[in-house]
């Protein structure tokens, strides 16, 4: 799997992502800056977390207009795989590659803590190493992660089975208390209709090594490495 991590001014979680990808592929991902071109032979594009362009206007709104995102849109149109985490999820939404919006957390507080998520759909390039219904722990750190979409969009997401992850308790219950940022229907992450684009707010890349305190997030990267072998 040849992965590229795209950074913008203000991105700050690219090194964690690099570590996670290197751990499963054995080689360094390509690190690209917003003015670079996206090479054609890439299997996976990753938009990591951070505060691109200082969150000006709306989180992800400026990055969505940056030069490299035209290449990323073309990559998506060719059926490329894209992972967006945290600010990366916000950028995918602002780019229109995933539906909905991410509002200020319902509590208005920046949340820096662990959460638990339930895998709502297994068998994708992002989730093949999990069983449907698996619960895993993940750190999260964001101020604007409150997923919102209108009812028609939500019904389509649920009807087409495009909800990737939901916030739950450690035991897997979908409760309001487990939904710290207030996301509609506890949605933590979603897929594009072709299942090749995945965006989520929490950071699975921050739990991929026992030294980090656990390997709960590792299955996502193992899934990608296994699914995208010389794709």
């Amino acid at each position, binding site marked *: 799997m040849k992965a590229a991590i795209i950074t913008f001014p203000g991105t700050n979680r690219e090194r964690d992502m690099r570590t996670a990808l290197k751990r499963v592929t054995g080689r360094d991902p390509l690190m690209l800056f917003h003015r670079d071109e996206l090479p054609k032979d890439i299997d996976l594009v990753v938009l990591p977390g951070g505060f691109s362009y200082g969150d000006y206007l709306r989180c992800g709104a400026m990055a969505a207009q940056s030069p490299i995102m035209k290449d990323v849109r073309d990559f998506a149109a060719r059926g490329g795989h894209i992972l967006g985490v945290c600010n990366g999820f916000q950028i995918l939404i*602002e780019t229109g590659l995933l*539906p*909905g*919006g991410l*509002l200020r*957390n*319902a509590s*208005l507080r920046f949340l820096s803590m662990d959460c638990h998520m339930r895998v709502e759909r297994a068998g994708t390039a992002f989730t093949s190493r999990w069983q449907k219904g698996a619960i895993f722990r993940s750190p999260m750190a964001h101020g604007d992660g*409150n997923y*919102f979409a209108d009812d028609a969009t939500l019904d389509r997401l649920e009807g087409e089975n495009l909800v990737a992850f939901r916030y739950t308790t450690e035991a897997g219950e979908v409760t309001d208390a487990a939904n710290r940022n207030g996301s509609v229907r506890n949605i933590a992450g979603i897929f594009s209709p072709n299942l090749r684009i995945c965006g989520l707010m929490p950071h699975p890349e921050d739990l991929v090594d026992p030294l980090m305190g656990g390997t709960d997030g590792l299955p996502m990267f193992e899934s990608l490495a296994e699914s995208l072998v010389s794709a």
Partner: protein
Amino acid sequence: MKARVYVMPKNGVLDPQGKAIGHALEGLGFAGVNDVRAGKVIELDLAETNPDAARKTAEEMARKLLANTVIESFRVELA
């Protein structure tokens, strides 16, 4: 020609910022605040001198960048 774009959270979209401001006003002793919504105003100084054309341009800017129409509504005023 100057144009102002008012961007507001859509009706029905939770506005935690507005809610927090409402609570703070209550805390200051202002009674009778039924609801607060917080948005933003973006002022544009456009080279265009035709009001209709300026409005059209500002609306297109709002749709493409200034507002996220999934969660926000906008209104353009010419000044």
